[in-house]
């Protein structure tokens, strides 16, 4: 079930209605039951793997805590983490490894052997999100920063919570678990604030992202037939598409959770207004980037700190390559990660120079230039993210650099919808970033204006949202 489906809204309404009647003490049982149903609804078999990881992590956590020696802790920790990663690798990456191996074999031997090990099992929903949360939890216990959770029901509710199954956030156990032990949080305010956030998320998803996706898909899936200018425009649209899609989905996850009384961590903080790529990554998919910073980047950088700047650069490369690979089992994602590591290294090495330059030019020019560069660089990387192969991405970049040929936009109607979508999201973020203290429509003190604004959002969703595949671009070359 995706959030923007009527089925999910019915499911959620039932979950929420029952939640309000249940005594606070037993609510987690209902949320857990709902979460298990959520997995089972996609495919009954999907329940097993997440449950296995839950049980495994729960007992490993307690075992680490109870181990008496540092060595013992280490052993249990490594065993637990390896097992969890093994599950992830089996479901998500087995095909990548076996086919890379087969390709390599074919290349060396000159034969044509097909990959006989392709696994037809689909990865269970949200497996990588669960994996990250489970590993983070075990690391915290091993570092003795947090206590192991003793209530299995609460722990399972944390790990399996249905609102974060599909697109995160990668919630921290020690941020979430206390919320299950606190008194009732089902308040009117939580309901309204959650509902508003959910609505804005829905808006970004179906008004902005899904509309842009129609065009971007049509262009990228037929990139050989399109001109450089078209590919350039499609790439710009794609940047806004993934931002609107991902942050919209996250806002819905946070909103739905808030309506049930749970606070999940903020995952996006207007990343496209970051003044550098470094800053972009502090604002984009924050729950994941801080996870990597805490459990991956920092330990590596600290261990190699005698290398000076090179420690940070080395850590950036390793972190982002792994992070890229996490997005999917394809070399394009590794290239995406590599590009991030590269620019971060450059930004680290030019820190001082950039700082001196900042003192000499006006703030608006420095900030504007920084934002433009960040968006452009993210656009460049996102070509790798979107393309089906590295070769394809390079061809697209080559075409964009030539920037010629006829510009394709299908129909004026689609173009208008797309530009309006980009306008909404840019206007929203710019207002929040630079004029947050001024007037606010969403939080206006007058009932009519505040509610009129949310009414308007719903009306725009109804008028211009993409509800199904009825809107399409016809393509035949």
């Amino acid at each position, binding site marked *: 079930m995706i959030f923007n489906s*009527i089925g999910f809204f019915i499911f959620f309404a039932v979950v929420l209605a029952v939640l309000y009647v249940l005594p606070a003490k037993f609510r987690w049982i209902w949320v857990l039951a709902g979460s298990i149903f959520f997995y089972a609804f996609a495919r009954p078999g999907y329940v097993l793997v997440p449950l296995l990881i839950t049980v495994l992590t729960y007992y490993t956590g307690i075992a680490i805590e109870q181990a008496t020696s540092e060595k013992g802790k280490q052993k249990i920790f490594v065993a637990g983490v390896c097992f969890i990663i093994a599950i992830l690798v089996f479901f998500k990456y087995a095909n990548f490894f076996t086919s890379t191996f087969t390709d390599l074999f074919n290349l060396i031997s000159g034969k044509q052997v097909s990959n006989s090990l392709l696994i037809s099992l689909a990865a269970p929903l949200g497996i990588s999100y669960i994996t990250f949360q489970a590993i983070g939890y075990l690391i915290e216990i091993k570092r003795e920063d947090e206590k192991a959770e003793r209530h299995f029901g609460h722990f399972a509710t944390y790990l399996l919570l249905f609102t974060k199954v599909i697109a995160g956030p990668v919630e921290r156990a020690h941020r979430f678990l206390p919320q299950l032990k606190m008194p009732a949080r089902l*308040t*009117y*305010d939580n309901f309204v604030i959650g509902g508003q956030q959910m609505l804005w998320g829905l808006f970004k998803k179906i008004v902005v992202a899904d509309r842009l996706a129609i065009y971007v898909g049509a262009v990228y899936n037929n990139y050989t037939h399109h001109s450089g200018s078209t590919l350039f425009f499609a790439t710009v649209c794609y940047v806004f598409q993934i931002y609107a899609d991902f942050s919209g989905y996250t806002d819905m996850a946070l909103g739905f959770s808030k309506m049930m009384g749970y606070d999940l961590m903020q995952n996006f903080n207007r990343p496209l207004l970051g003044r550098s790529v470094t800053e972009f990554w502090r604002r984009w998919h924050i729950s994941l980037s801080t996870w990597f910073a805490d459990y991956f980047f920092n330990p590596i950088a600290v261990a190699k700190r005698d290398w000076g700047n090179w420690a940070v650069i080395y850590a950036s490369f390793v972190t982002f390559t792994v992070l890229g690979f996490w997005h999917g089992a394809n070399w394009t994602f590794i290239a995406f990660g590599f590009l991030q590591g590269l620019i971060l290294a450059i930004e680290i090495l030019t820190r001082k120079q950039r700082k001196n330059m900042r003192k000499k030019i006006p703030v608006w020019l420095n900030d504007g230039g920084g934002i433009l560069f960040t968006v452009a660089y993210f656009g460049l990387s996102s070509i790798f993210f979107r393309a089906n192969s590295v070769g394809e991405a390079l061809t697209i970049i080559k075409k964009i650099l030539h920037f010629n040929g006829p510009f394709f936009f299908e*129909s*004026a*109607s689609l173009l*208008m*919808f797309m530009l309006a979508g980009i306008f909404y999201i840019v206007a929203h973020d710019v207002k929040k970033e630079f004029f947050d203290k001024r007037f606010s429509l969403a939080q206006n003190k007058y*009932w009519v204006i505040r*509610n*009129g604004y*949310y*009414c*308007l959002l*719903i*009306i725009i969703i*109804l*008028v*211009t*949202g*993409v*509800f*199904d*595949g*009825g*809107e*399409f671009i*016809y393509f*035949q*070359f």
Partner: protein
Amino acid sequence: MQHNNKSNKSFRYYLLQAVLFIALLWAADLIVGKILRHFYRRQSSGWEYATRYSAEETKADLLIFGASRAQQQYIPTPFEDTLQLTGYNVGRDGTSFFYHYAMLQSVLKRYTPKVIILDCEYAALKNAAASYDRLSVLLPLYEDHPEMQRIINLRSPFEKYKFTSSIYPYNSMLFKIAVANLKSNKEEKEDINGYMPLHKSLNEPIKTFDYTEKYELDSVKVNMLRSFIDECKSRNIKLYLVCTPYYMKIKGNDHSLAVTQQVAAEKNVPFIDYSADSFYFNRPQLFDDTVHLNMTGAKIFCADLASKLKKDLQR
């Protein structure tokens, strides 16, 4: 309670807030929906107009049903001249037998045409979610056309409840409606009796595609094809199933086309197949793309088909 007076307010206060919000939303939806409806119905050119005109106004003797390969290839004029009948092309791009059948229901409710051409293409009976989604072009007609509702409701189990919103039927049509209502567009007609001309011409060698695979058919579509034929026959409408030329060769036999042919034979309805006509295989200049003739090609094809129909009708 450390909270302010807000959380102490009574249940009745919150209920009132909710009711007021819903009232506001309902009113806004109704007003915007009515405005969109007004301008949708005021269009006098363009694709949405042609669809509404097909369902509500045309009285032509000869109708052409189908998807883009009907809408963009059959010029009614040659048929009118040769057969001495009035003609209109009710095809719509991206649609399937669901649409054709729904359109037939609206037509038959008003009058009985003399001749109907139903365009059939490769993969027309394939099971595809897009065929259901694409019924979206009929949503604005839902309210006024009970005869279409059963078919439009196939879109989803929740479809009939979606019409609670007055805006919903006009979703994604805002700019199309706006553009069609501009004065300049109202005067300039793009179509010729429902036919939407194509003007590019192809310049590439012909390719061969593998159609040996037996994909899954949609049994609902097959049933609708059967009903379409039955309803025409029961009203003594002369029905022709036609497959127009392709600028591609295929290996094997398209599954949908084979089934269509079989149904036509079973129901004793003529099936005219141009898909492997070698005349067109050597003439890329007659095509806009590999599956659509351009206007020049359409003229040749329509003249040829019209004379075939004339012979058949005279028998």
